């Protein structure tokens, strides 16, 4: 099963085991990871599940045009590592991801 480590702005972290095709946003909500809101339920229309994808054993497709458009306006600064976590769905059963949660989402 894929694992995702969520690193908070204060450095604390939590690693959870998730399932293939479950987005990093959905996994965060299921485990009440602070700082990931995911208000639109994964439609890439609210921009409140922004994370920095720092490390990943699986490579993901680059952001779609819509995701790019949302990422320009995230509450916390956008970096090269910025992604909407609703668009990150591990497909490799052994995937290991480390994402940083930004200071703010709204």
């Amino acid at each position: 099963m894929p694992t995702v480590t969520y690193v908070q702005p204060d450095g604390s972290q939590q690693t959870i085991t998730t399932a293939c095709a479950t987005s990093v946003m959905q996994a965060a909500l299921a485990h009440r990871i602070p700082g990931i809101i995911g208000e639109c339920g994964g439609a890439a229309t609210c921009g409140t599940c922004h994370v920095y994808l720092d490390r990943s054993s699986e490579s993901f497709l680059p952001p779609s045009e819509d995701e790019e458009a949302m990422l320009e306006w995230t509450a916390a600064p956008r970096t090269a590592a910025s992604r909407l976590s609703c668009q990150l769905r591990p497909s490799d059963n052994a995937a290991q991801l480390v994402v940083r949660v930004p200071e703010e989402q709204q």
Partner: protein
Amino acid sequence: MRDGIVVVGGGHAGVQTVDALRERGYSGPLTLVCGEARLPYNRPPVSKELLDPATDPTPAPLRAASFYRDNGITVVPAAALGIDRGTRTVHISGGMAARYDHLVLATGARARTLPLPGAALPNVLTLRTAQDAHALRERLHAGTRVVVLGGGFIGLEVASAARRVDAQVVLLERGPQLLGRAVSEPTAARIAEHHRADGVRLGLGEQVCGFATDGSRVTAVRTGSGRLVSADVVVVGIGAVAEDRLAHEAGLPVQQGILVDQWLATADPRISAIGDCAVVRDPLTGTTTRLESVQNASDQARYVAEQLTGGTSRPYRALPWFWSDQGALRFQMVQRIASYDRTVSSGQSVLRFEGGLLTGVESLNDPSTHQAARRLLQRATPSLAELAAVDHDIRVLARQAARARQVVA
């Protein structure tokens, strides 16, 4: 608080309330009463992905079962029957009852039905729940003659879903434009163009006045202009009615929804109402607002949770936004207020102004402008002149504002 908090309603508002309460450290008893047999699920797909026969028919739960278990949230999958305010008790079907120190009503809304003979026949459907979506998708096939009544967001999303499986779609709207007063005329015209190009036959200004039936099913829809439109399936999408029965029967004021003040409290300070079911009254102007959106449900839920954990005394305030996916078309809207006296088109978006100030932005396949407008309107209200100076490209203003904030920070 000894009896704890009871939340009635398993939609976005209810789930966000219990989530935010625990997030903010509330540790008392917490009960979520939801009328459906399944765990609360994500609602927007009900009128979108869930209608697509190629998708998983099981709606994605808003939170996994473990979330409720791990956070000590009792989920009661049964309908609330009544509120006894004297004993602070919610009566629940199956003979159950839940006592509360505070009650949050997040009962949502139900589909408005047509008061016409034949409307109760089995091929006349409304769309509100995952179960409704299943019933509809099983009837949608290539060639099926679908008549959609109502050119609102649900009707348009259903029309797109039906076209995806190559059904024949006629959409009848009694008003002169799609989406009534929710969107401006230029945006409504572009949305109509999209649906016509997608193969939907639009009948604007067509009032439905009856059904032709063969006794067991509706065979055609009769319009005021005398047309008879053949139908295998009729989808009624003429809006929603707030679920305010519990509040009304408990003696709380309702006005096409549960009336609340700017703190989202009903006339009983121990009862709040949020989301689709709540009508917020502005004491200064006397105007009332009831919004049906995920944003409104979530923001009001977080606000009430903050209040119940001692975090806020300010009145509720949020910037409303909304989206609707109709096939390849994504409509997005943000609005400070619904009124406007002037519109200006800017690319794929329409800016709305009142008294020379921006009141809202409607966007079609233009998420960048939408999101820029949301960012900007959270902090400022740009004028028509300021926008004219940047060729009405709100992204330019939003970028300037973001840079200015960084400099200050």
